[in-house]
């Protein structure tokens, strides 16, 4: 009831406002057209139609500029590259051979579609290093998957091997982070590596991370203790506490087993085909 009275009074007020505004705006002919269109509705115009004043065109029109210059000016570049260094594992292992330092790290740099990726993993026992380094190009191909291609280099006690690497990396259903790579090396050598890991949140900061890793080779490489076929499996369970998301000490257990000829080679050297190690380390990224 009183609302209706208020609206009427408001109408009267805004009408006068609109009239004043209209005078100034009519100088621009586009708007004159627009106003004329509205005017054709005569008295039926809504309160809002009467009150609304379209803006005049800009006096200053932006010059043409390149996309790069525009992105710079806007402070908005959705193609910008980012980079990350992650040491998923940097740990002490109580191996049979004595205290061992193990690592598994990666560094990437790139944009949403393409990244350069440097991966390295390995361990050091008694100042002997054994491990691998891979330099890969990572290109996203679907919602959850990217392809990777590049070179890999294995180093250690035996002769080092260099490979061409190709594979996929991604997030499988149920949040499994999966990597599967194939390798082709000199003298017709081939190899394959598969890993999957998962994160279980015991609390918001206490995270249990199971990880499984499988390797296979196409050809014997006795000098490196490798026989053809399915060669070894590793199952790890690491429990970390994220003091900060990027800084998490952990403890864990690592079970590994060699198979087939690879196991025979290990036994011939006087080592076990099975091994269980306790680990303690630090997961860091930045």
């Amino acid at each position, binding site marked *: 009831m*009183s*609302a209706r009275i208020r*609206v009427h*009074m*408001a109408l009267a*007020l*805004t009408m006068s*406002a609109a009239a*004043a*505004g209209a005078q*100034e705006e009519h100088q621009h002919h*586009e*708007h004159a*057209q*627009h106003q004329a269109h*509205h005017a054709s509705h005569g008295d*039926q115009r*809504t*309160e809002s*139609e009467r009150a*609304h*004043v*379209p*803006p*005049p*065109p*800009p*006096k*200053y029109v*932006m010059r043409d*500029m390149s*996309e790069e210059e*525009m*992105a710079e*000016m*806007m*402070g*908005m*570049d*959705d*193609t910008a590259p980012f980079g990350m260094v992650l040491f998923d594992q940097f740990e002490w292992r109580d191996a049979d051979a004595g205290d061992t330092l193990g690592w598994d790290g990666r560094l990437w740099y790139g944009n*949403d*579609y393409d990244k350069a990726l440097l991966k390295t993993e390995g361990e050091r026992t008694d100042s002997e290093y054994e491990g691998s380094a891979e330099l890969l190009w990572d290109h*996203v*191909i*679907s*919602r959850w*998957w990217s392809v990777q291609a590049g070179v890999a280099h294995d180093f250690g006690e035996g002769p080092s091997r260099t490979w061409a690497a190709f594979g996929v990396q991604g*997030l499988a*259903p*149920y*949040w499994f982070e999966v990597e599967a790579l194939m390798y082709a090396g000199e003298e017709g050598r081939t190899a394959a590596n598969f890993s999957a890991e998962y994160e*279980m949140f*015991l*609390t*918001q900061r206490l995270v*249990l991370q199971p990880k499984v890793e499988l390797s296979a080779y196409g050809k014997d490489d006795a000098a490196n203790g490798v026989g053809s076929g399915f060669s070894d499996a590793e199952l790890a369970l690491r429990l970390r506490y994220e003091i900060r*998301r*990027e800084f998490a000490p952990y403890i864990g257990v690592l079970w590994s087993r060699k198979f087939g000829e690879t196991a025979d080679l290990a036994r011939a050297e006087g080592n076990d085909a099975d091994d269980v190690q306790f680990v303690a380390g630090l997961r860091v*990224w930045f």
Partner: protein
Amino acid sequence: MSSMPSSRARLPQLSRRSFLQAAGAGLFVLGAPRGAGWAQSHAQTVLTGSHFDLQIGEAPFNFTGNKRVGTVVNGQIPGPLLRWREGDTVTLRVANRLAARSSIHWHGMILPADMDGVPGLSFEGIPSLGEYLYRFKVNQAGTYWYHAHSRFQEQTGLYGPIVIERRGGERFPTERDYVVMLSDWTDIDPERIFAVLKKHSDYYNFRRRTVGEFFADVRKNGWSETVADRRMWGEMRMNPTDMLDVSGYAYTYLMNGVTPTGNWTGLFSRGEKVRLRFINGSSMTFFDVRIPGLKLTVVATDGQDVEPVSVDEFRIGAAETYDVIVEPKDDRAYTIFAQAMDRSGYARGTLSPSPGLEAEIPPLDPRPLLTMGDMGMSHGAHAAGSMKPMDHSQMDHGQMNHGQRNHGQRSHGQRSSGETDPHAAHGSSAQRGAVDHAAMGHGASALHHPSTERTPLQDMQAEQPNIGLNDPGVGLRNNGRRVLTYADLHTIGGPIDRREPAREIELHLTGHMERFVWSFNGQKFSEAKPLKFRLGERLRITLVNDSMMTHPIHLHGMWSEIEDASGHFQVRKHTVNVNPAQKLSYAVTADAPGRWAYHCHLLYHMEAGMFREVHVESGDEGGAGGPGAGHGAHS
């Protein structure tokens, strides 16, 4: 609401260019009365008149116990309240004392494109140590705000309120009038936040579902239902707790630049009407606002007066504004409680009959979970467990007629989407469950995803979008309080243009949570061509949210006139919240020539690509503008 203008808000009538520290502090911010040594070091000021000198600079702040440098206007966070008068031409000389390029955008103002303040589109920005003269006629009234449109300067403090006095006085006069500006302060360098989100998008989420919760759910809902629920989310590789990308872990939520401990306080005398002009000046936060013990009468949104509607609570998206009137009947303090949508923190202040009083601070609501309905999926057997039974307590029968309110005024152009019954989707549906049913019946078959959505940088598509405006959104459904929805908002005075939109542009809100990429139609800003509007045309923009996040979408330069599910004018806004998997339409009159920004107002989403240029030009190329021209177009 009783009598007319003369009893208008008890505001100091300030002279031109006055720079009123003391009175201003009373109006905008009362400061931090007690125990808040670090809360607030500056008194907030009010600037009135038609000429304004603003200086963008840096100043030290200490909101959290750590000293940080903020980006300020005239030394303050928020910047000074600018009070304009409808009909005035305002001149604003903005000097930039930063080492970097800067800018100020007048959010929600209808003004010439070169005054809009978006570097790269409107102008070249304000160079370091340079200045820019903004000058435009103010042809609107209400509550608005200003903020930087340069990189992350808004996040670091460059924002402030604008209040435009309505010519002839407020439609809903009150005895008191306060701005309540909400924002999210962080001690962390926003460049780092952005980089962290790109590397580890879950970084700030400390409310994930745990193993313990799995077993609790098994006890409550049974093994098979719990496993089915986890399987569903696992298959999608989505997280139902992903509500806000940046949480209270990084943010300290401010009310008028004051921390919750600082307790911003607005004074009232019992029986007075108090107008609270809520502005969400945050970069990444949706707030759910309520004042326990008081009904909130919403009288305006985004500066536009609406038919008063009384609610207990409302959600305010980044860049939205809501004017509410409260009438405290008791001589006691009331807490203004604004909890972040993910319940990771809150902004808080007090309405009090005298300084220094406090009321109880309510506990944060339980952490909300997204449902299958929020993912645009049918709530089949799997999702049943996560859908709470519908509670009709929030159903507002009084609204039922509103769907028909404009019938007499406009043609009944039916939309192509097949929603033919003007009453079905609006009046008869309650909050949520019914929305889904409506979507199942209609929306699904008509939905078309643009081919550009076949990108690896998009992680989901809504199969069955939710239509209708009456869903209060995740975390607010069936909470026992009367929660505002867009279906409750009816702009007084009708649309600014009664023409039926002659064409439709459908845009999908898209992104990838894990990779932290955001886009329209699967295309980032850098990958998309500008949207073309023909000068003078009335068009319809239909947004389909193909993501699980809520996005506040802001079109510069022109109003977004939201339509109800049957195509009738509902409410005029400058920033439109679109819920996960929601389909929503608004009409736009392209009467503002020039180049304009169109984007998600979550700052890091915008920076990640959720931005388009809109080009309004006379329709010389192929087809005249104006009524009748053009066809539905997917763009």
